[in-house]
């Protein structure tokens, strides 16, 4: 008897896999479960192979399923890409041998094939809707798990409503047909998961929670240029921004996206922009610009498989070096990694606060897996994080408070900031080095003792903000047993958090007492605290393993630079697929039993 639900829909682009998956995930959500959903797709619009994996249970589900119990394998390729690597004995495959010409498909031993004539059933209902078969399949899955058909029906009504009654009707019939076919022709999945329709959650992706969080953080300007996998942030805000006072501007390229964001921030808007690695490379110059004029801008970097255009539809945590190195010179900025779906909601708001309070660019490090997978959330707290705008002057400055100095030297390095339109606040904000008033020291003053002094003061002033911010940020916390109880500490960052922790939970069965240190605040960095944690575990004889999704172990290298502590053993993944808990567990097993083979 299965104690969770794990389904994958697999087919080709154009089969409606994504909307079917969404439907199924929402049916499960509305049945009171927590769902984890993840898609796999290719950089091709039609005909490519896609899949949608769902895992659900009554408690929180924050990592993908290790194995698929029920696979809808629409196309022959589904067997190669999905059934073979993801199934084991006991699993069931729904497929339509006639409709999609699949003969004697290869499956792992012990997997049951259920041949359902979905295409024919769909045609019998209405032959004009080409992909109606997917509704038949979903209906079948609903039946397999003993979910309530009514929930499916409600979903379909809502979804197809705008297409008219006829379409709704046809889809309802298709769902019922799939449902009945299973009831009549095959046995259901035996599982112990309890449904509860009174529970209420939303099913949402990491990009969307980040966008929603920013919007709730009072975002007033978002600029972007489409780039997978950051595009959903832009689409979300293009849709909902205009309902909540946020101007959303698609620009002609990422350079101008980022400079637009700086302009908006200068004007006084809470401002953010977003892209993926290649676009972020183009934004580099604007990050230093934002920093030297002390404009608060949030830059979102949703990484994908690199280098270069690389694997545009695959995941990687490969852009840490790029974020750390973006733009010339030394200047204050923050880098924070998104750790989870709910985390995105709060981080969206926190990042805007940090940007404005410290008047500096904040980079949010996410990745394709983080941004494009979905989870069921309930209880988002829209009021938890207040909107903090820092030392912002929006009222006219009185004559007796003059002179106003935009880059005034202060104890905390933060100068009161004025926005255009405020009387008596006029100044020039420039990308050249400048004095307290914003006047250049790069031109005719450069090299004079006075200008040298100004330069030193302004550098110190700006960099001082990093100290203040570090003090404000929550120090790193270890999840799991302390040094004395643990026999393993896994170090990871950002999006890897939940998969690692699921793997550690699994590995308890193997005798592993695993703790997890997942880095969220990358810059400024709690070098002292992280060093102490690592050394504490090491001296207690705990083995330490780094896990991250890139080739060179960028975070582990960074940690060494900041703490001097070398994490020698690393489980590194760089082929682009999101990491499964069982894979981490496997790596842990190898590691605990001698050594990792990579």
């Amino acid at each position: 008897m299965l104690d969770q639900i794990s389904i994958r829909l697999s087919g080709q682009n154009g089969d409606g896999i994504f909307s079917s998956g969404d439907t199924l995930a929402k049916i499960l959500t509305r049945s009171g479960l927590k769902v984890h959903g993840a898609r796999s797709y290719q950089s091709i619009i039609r005909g490519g192979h896609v899949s949608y994996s769902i895992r659900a249970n009554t408690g929180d589900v924050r990592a993908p399923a290790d194995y698929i119990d029920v696979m809808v394998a629409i196309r022959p390729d589904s067997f190669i890409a999905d059934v073979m690597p993801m199934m084991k004995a006991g699993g069931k495959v729904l497929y339509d041998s006639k409709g999609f010409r699949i003969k004697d498909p290869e499956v792992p031993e012990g997997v049951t094939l259920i041949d359902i004539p979905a295409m024919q059933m769909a045609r019998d209902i209405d032959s004009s809707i080409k992909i109606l078969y997917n509704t038949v399949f979903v209906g079948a899955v609903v039946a397999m798990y003993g979910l309530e058909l009514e929930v499916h029906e409600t979903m379909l009504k809502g979804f197809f409503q705008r297409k008219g009654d006829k379409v709704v009707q046809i889809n309802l019939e298709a769902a019922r047909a799939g449902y009945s076919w299973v009831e009549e022709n095959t046995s259901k999945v035996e599982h112990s998961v309890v449904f509860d329709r009174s529970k209420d959650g939303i099913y949402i992706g990491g990009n969307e929670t980040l966008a929603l969080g920013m919007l709730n953080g009072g975002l007033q300007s978002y600029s972007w240029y489409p780039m997978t996998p950051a595009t959903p942030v832009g689409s979300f805000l293009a849709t909902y921004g205009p309902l909540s006072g946020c101007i959303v501007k698609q620009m002609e390229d990422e350079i101008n996206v980022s400079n637009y964001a700086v302009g908006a921030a200068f004007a006084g808007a809470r401002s953010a922009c977003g892209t993926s690695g290649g676009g972020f490379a183009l934004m580099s110059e604007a990050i230093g610009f934002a920093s030297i004029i002390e404009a608060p801008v949030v830059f979102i970097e949703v990484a994908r498989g690199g280098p270069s255009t690389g694997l545009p539809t695959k995941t990687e945590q490969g852009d840490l070096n790029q974020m750390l190195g973006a733009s010339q010179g030394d200047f204050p900025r923050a880098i924070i990694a998104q750790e989870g779906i709910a985390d995105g909601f709060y981080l969206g708001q926190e990042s805007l606060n940090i940007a404005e309070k410290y008047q500096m660019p904040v980079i949010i490090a996410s990745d394709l897996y983080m941004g494009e997978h979905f989870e069921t959330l309930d209880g988002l707290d829209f009021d938890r994080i207040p909107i903090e705008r820092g030392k912002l002057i929006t009222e006219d400055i009185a004559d007796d408070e003059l002179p106003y100095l935009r880059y005034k030297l202060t104890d905390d390095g933060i100068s009161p900031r004025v926005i255009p339109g405020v009387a008596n606040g006029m100044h020039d904000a420039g990308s050249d080095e400048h004095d307290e008033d914003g006047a250049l020291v790069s031109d005719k003053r450069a090299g004079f003792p006075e200008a040298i002094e100004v330069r030193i003061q302004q550098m110190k002033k700006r960099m001082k903000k990093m100290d203040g911010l570090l003090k404000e940020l929550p120090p790193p916390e270890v999840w799991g047993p302390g040094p004395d109880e643990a026999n393993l500490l896994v170090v990871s960052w950002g999006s890897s958090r939940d998969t690692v922790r699921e793997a550690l939970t699994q590995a308890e069965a193997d005798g592993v007492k695993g703790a997890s240190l997942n880095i969220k605040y990358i810059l400024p960095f709690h070098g002292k605290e992280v060093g102490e944690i690592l050394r504490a575990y090491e001296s207690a004889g705990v083995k330490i393993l780094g896990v991250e999704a890139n080739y060179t172990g960028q975070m582990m290298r960074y940690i060494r630079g900041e703490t001097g502590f070398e994490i020698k053993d690393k489980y590194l993944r760089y082929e682009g697929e999101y990491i499964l808990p069982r894979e981490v567990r496997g790596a842990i097993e190898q590691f605990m039993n001698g050594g990792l083979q990579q």
Partner: protein
Amino acid sequence: MTETVELRVTSKDWQSHRPTWCPGCGDFGVLSATRKALVNTQWQPKDTVIVSGIGCSSNFPHFVGGYGIHTLHGRSQPVAQGIKLSNPDLNVIVAGGDGDGLAIGMGGFLHAARRNMDITYLIMDNQVYGLTVNQASPTSTMDRKTRSTPYGNIEHPISPVQLAISAGATFVARTFSKEGKQFESIMQAALEHKGFAFIDALSPCVTFNKVNTYDWFKERVYDLNAPDSDHDTSDKIAALTKADEDFSGQIPIGIFYQTQKPTYEELDPTIQKFGNVITRGALKIDPETRNKILADFR
């Protein structure tokens, strides 16, 4: 009872730091004509932002009153757009050089033109990279020797005027730094134009450009809008045709083209709903909208 006295904005209000340009630089003429036009508009300096890139000419904001933002080389346009859309009540003026706006900034310029935000853009066109000490720019004439073209320039110069018209700018003019009166009136018209107004300002670099000098231009420029001219500024084709006259013959200066189209900010859905988002403030999502959004994810 208080009485509000509208103080007249004078030239002094538009003063700022002393220009650091070379003595005789064409940009001085641009600056003084711009200041006069600004006085004519009676705009408040506090409601005005001057945006520039990097170059000799891009030091402009430091020499004019109002708020200034001296951005990156070639990036004044997107910065200006971010400012304008966030706060459409501001007067936004972009100023820079031919290298800044037509080489590295070409894409940004033409996209700005097509968007038709209510922004004025002024290129101080000296046919050279001044600040980096004499290299060929996109408006350098063929064969000219510079430090980057020791054997003579071999790239055809472009016509910023024709490109601006083609891209969709709704006000396009050219004027000359030494034609103070014309400059002032064109500048004023540009500032008052509702939409993207572009001025190609011929502004000699006395230090590096030994070909396109004051005298050289003086001999060639003629007023396109002179009383006896039959140029129709509402005729786009006529404007494109005039813009096709290159530096090999006489050089038309004046307003080439002016038309009215809705500005971008008039069409933006957020601005339509909320007006100026800066004035509105940074607010949390209101409960009704919040529920509407969440419903889409259920």
